[in-house]
């Protein structure tokens, strides 16, 4: 979503899918973002390339001839921990869990929005390159996955990129980040943020939450940070720094 400019220069991304058109289309998008794209059409080919070349990110399909994506990722994970985005037509929850369990960093279902894919690629690369340089030890700094809130600076960064919030949004994000994993109902959030009675809160909280999600989530409908507990409330899940979900 954001033009990262020459930061991406020289990054090698391996795209692996048995459908050559898809590989081509993805390549076009990635090349537009000035990434170097390597192409593979099955798992074995991908693994060969990964052995021979220095690849920074892998986009791999699941259902492929010779060796499928799952096995390829499993093989890859024995040696390398480069970011892997699985690209699959399988949209079941079980499929996603399966893919993430074996070591993939992200799971994108077909048909995908090319821009979303690019965004995810970028996010993964950012996280990959900045891993280990996340500020800690400051007690006013709240970190959750790629999201860092520095309260003293009133600054929120996502994967190193600053995110702009309205003051209310900022307060909500801070509340949730201060209470990771704790569910707040709409009225609780309202009482804490607006510091008033929750009477006639209407939809203010949910509207704000949705807007926050649109700012920090790549796909707001499948939020990574701010989870909607339908009928209960909202919470921010604890995301370990090494894993990007």
């Amino acid at each position: 979503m954001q033009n990262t400019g020459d930061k991406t220069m020289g990054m090698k991304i391996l795209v692996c899918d048995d459908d050559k058109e898809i590989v081509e289309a993805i390549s076009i998008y990635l090349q537009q973002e000035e990434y170097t794209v390597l192409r593979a059409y099955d798992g074995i080919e991908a693994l060969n390339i990964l052995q021979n070349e220095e690849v920074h990110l892998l986009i791999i399909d699941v259902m492929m001839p010779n060796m499928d994506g799952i096995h390829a990722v499993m093989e890859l994970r024995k040696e390398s921990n480069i970011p892997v985005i699985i690209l699959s037509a399988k949209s079941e929850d079980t499929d996603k869990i399966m893919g993430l369990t074996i070591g993939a960093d992200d799971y994108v279902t077909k048909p995908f929005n090319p821009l979303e894919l690019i965004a995810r690629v970028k996010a993964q690369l950012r996280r990959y390159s900045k891993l280990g340089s996340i500020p800690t030890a400051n007690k006013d700094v709240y970190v959750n996955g790629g999201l860092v809130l520095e309260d003293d600076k009133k600054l929120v960064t996502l994967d190193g990129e600053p995110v702009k919030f309205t003051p209310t949004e900022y307060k909500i994000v801070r509340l949730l980040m201060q209470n990771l994993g704790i569910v707040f109902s709409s009225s609780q959030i309202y009482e804490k943020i607006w510091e008033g009675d929750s009477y006639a809160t209407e939809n203010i909280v949910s509207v704000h939450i949705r807007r926050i999600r649109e700012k920090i989530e790549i796909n707001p409908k499948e939020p990574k940070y701010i989870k909607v507990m339908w009928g209960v409330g909202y919470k921010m899940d604890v995301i370990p720094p090494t894993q990007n979900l």
Partner: protein
Amino acid sequence: MTKSREHQEPNPEPDKNSEMDSERVRDQKQVTEDRQDRRKRGVAGGVLRVLVIGLTGMAAGVLAVFVICMIRRYGIKDLNKRDYLETSRFADSMMEQIAELNIWLGVAQIYESGEDGGSIASMDSLVEISRASDSDVVSLESDLKPGIQLSQSSSLTYDQFVNNISSYNYETDENGNIYLIDNSKEYNANWYSSILLSDYQLRSSNSFIEIPSSAYIELAYQMMEPNAVAVSSLDDEALKEALISRHYHSSLSRVEDYLNGNASFYESYDSVRDLEEDMESDAGMMEDTTSLNAISMTEATTSMNTMSTTEAVSIEVTVSTDDISVKEYDDEILNQILADVRIYDDYLYIDNKFSSDAYITTISGANEILGFDPGEMTLVYSPIENKFYSSYYGWYMIPDEIYYLSRYIASDLNMNLGGADNNGKYEISGEIPGEALFWLPFADSNSLLRVKLGENYTDYLQAERNLNNRQQNFLYYLERSDKEYDNGAEDIASLGAYMIITKLSADDLEAGMNDDQGSENASPYYTYKFSVDDQYGYGIQMINFDNSYLINRITRDWTNSSFNMNMEEGDRLFLAIRPDYSYYDEFSLGFEQFNMYYKYMIPACVLVILLLAATVVLVLISIKRTGCSGDSDKNEIYFLDRWPIEVMWLAVFTSLFFMVVFLILTRNQIYQYMVVGWVRSNLIVFLATCGFYYLMVLLGMTGFLSLIRRLRVKEYQKISIFRMLGGRLRSGLRVIAGQRNLVAQTVELYLGYWLLLIISIFMILALTGIWPFLGLFLFVLLHIGMLILSIRKAKGEQMIRTVTEELAAGNLEVEVPKGRPLEVERQILENIEHLGDGLHTALEQSIYDERMKAELITNVSHDIKTPLTSIINYVDLLKREDIENEEVRHYIEVLDQKSRRLKQLTEDLVEVSKISSGNIELECMPIDLGELVRQSVGEFQDKFEEHKLQIVDNIAEEPCMIFADGRRTYRVMDNLMQNVYKYAMPNTRVYIDLMHSEETVIFSIKNISQAELNIDARELMERFIRGDQSRSTEGSGLGLSIAKDLVHMQNGAFDILLDGDLFKVTIMFPMVSQ
């Protein structure tokens, strides 16, 4: 087999090979033949063994019987080992016989007026006929004592008896005499036995008996009335002489001796023979007839002429012709007699018409003999023997005393038998003396009508007769306790050994064992005591004739006489066998035979033991060897063993049963042949018996050995008729019951029940004999049967209920509970089981189908997604191209829209198929629907604003908790919002309401449709249907359907209301407490 092998193998050395083969064949053949031979030999050996077993067994049995018989007899013979048991049995059974003897004595006494009834009154008189004055009719007074019973053999009841007596007409003449007029010509033979002398007289002479007006007749009708035989007053010498000399029934020579050279008799005898011829020639008939008559009369007057007093009765046997007085009959009578005389061989027969004389009569009820009229007893006179014979028991001799005495009376009373009065009736004139003895052959010929004249003499005659009138070794004598006698018993005893049977008095019975005579055999159970006195040196020798035989002999003798068999207390019955066997009879023969065979007894014993041992050994060998003839390790089965096992059991039991029964029945036959071999006909019986035993042993052994073989080969025990019948019956009934129409079956059962019920009730109502019991039994049986049937039926129905309940509860894989229901219920249960299985299969099939469909859709959607990805990507790429042409840009826009829609469709399709196939899992938890609605609205707020849709929400403040899956419920909300977003008319208000009652949470969303709602609300919820058919811009048309399904899955209600352009969706969930 070997042949084919030869064909298949073309050997280089065919000769050698075939030789070997043929050798093997020969060997095999040899083995088979050997085996067959052995088997044959084994079977033959078995058969032979059984045959020999039969032989030895039979021989052992027969010999054993012989030995037992010999030992028995030896025991009797030997005084010291006297078989008391045997004799006690004898005495017992004899007493039974005696008690059964129904010897009837009709006793009548005619007394002078004023005379005391005397001894006869002490008897149990039945009827007294007395006449007080001339004008009185004779009155009958019944004085039947209750203890007296009428004869069993008599058909006459007491009433009949009285009636018969009273049916006499009495006539009185001018002298005051009463005449009994016999108008009744019908007499029952049995009735005679109870009727009077007068009656007899009347009948026999066709005349009246005159009864003086002052006399009365006492009738006694009794059975076994005690009479005494007293021989004490007899002169011993005279008695002995009488006993010895009287052999009336013997041969002609004895008669000759007896008659002692009566010249006229012999002449008469000759003349009879002449007469025979003469009669045929019809010459000089008159004179000869007269002489014949004379002869008979001669004999009649020959015998006794003295009998004067009652105290000292002496018998003078005078055998001379001096006293012969010929009674002259007039010609008319003689002619009459002659007309009735027939001559047969050496005997002269006098027909029944010769009845004018008092002592020769016909008696009805006799046998059929020699061409004489059957049914009548014929008297035959033998001039050679000078005897009268009756035909009743064959040629039964009329006892002499009857003959003599009747003659005597006739003369003594000075009866005028010759003259008939004007009325054609004979009249007895003269006077009846105070005491007279009058014997006459009585009706049944076994008993005598006795008129009391001289008791002692009668007794003497009886004793004499019993002792001497049979030339036999068996003797008996009854000693009366109420008679004094000095030496009578001893006299008899002196003739040989004897056994005494005493009837015990009540005191004796109480005294029991204290009696010194034969006390060991006196017991409370015997009213009779018997004792055997050893002092005479011999015991009773019953030898080995049946007791019944002995009894028959005694009773025959007794029944031939008037000897009173009824033993009184203290009476003693003396039984004796002549020790010297002086007569040739069964006893002497048996004695001879015993002596002859006795020496074989010990060898026989040894032989029996040997034979028995041999039999046992053979049986054991047979048991061991049977079925093992061929191969010792293999049990063989013969054709007999394929027969039902019941046949074998039947054979064994039949054999045992008949062997035991026939041993009991025929032991005497065996004995009689072996010991009393003189009975020739017994040879056949003996051989037949042996043969039968033999067959029985064969039969039993055959069956027994088959059973033994079956013991070894168990499955042959199952060949059973009962097993077979039982199985067939059961399966047959099952088939019948299973195929029949149930209604018909029920009706038949009901009818059958009623039929049997009615039959049983009728049987009960019969109330006679065994029928009520049978009826009751049937009744009870019927109802027990019905009860059992009902219970079994109810059990079956219970099972059906259990099974159907389970089925209804949803358990399609029902299992029929264990039990044995009736056929109909069994079928129903079977069908239910099949039904359950069918349903189960169908359901599984449909679930499987749904799953398959969902899977198919999912897979297809995967396959669609991949190309769709390319389409979307390249459309997007196209869009990025800087295209001048407006039309092309428009085309690309269309492509973009359609590809997105395709994407949406694909996703919804998968969702729908998953939901409808139940392939999703709900994660239900209590959630606040209000919160959820707010969240949802928040998600769509911006979108609604895009379309200028104003949300008017009315959400309850308090939590509305429902139990649901939040994500799925959001999906419902999402779909509804999407729907509103897409189809609501811009610039309108959207009403969102959430309220709750006690139990329900109600959510509704209302909007105004942009397009005309030309469709049914129900159809809207169906898949792939949208409000406006023409509109196909966005959405899959599955949204409402998915929403509805998801709500339903979470126990909610989903309803769509269309009212004009108003579109309203209402969702209701059950509320849960917080």
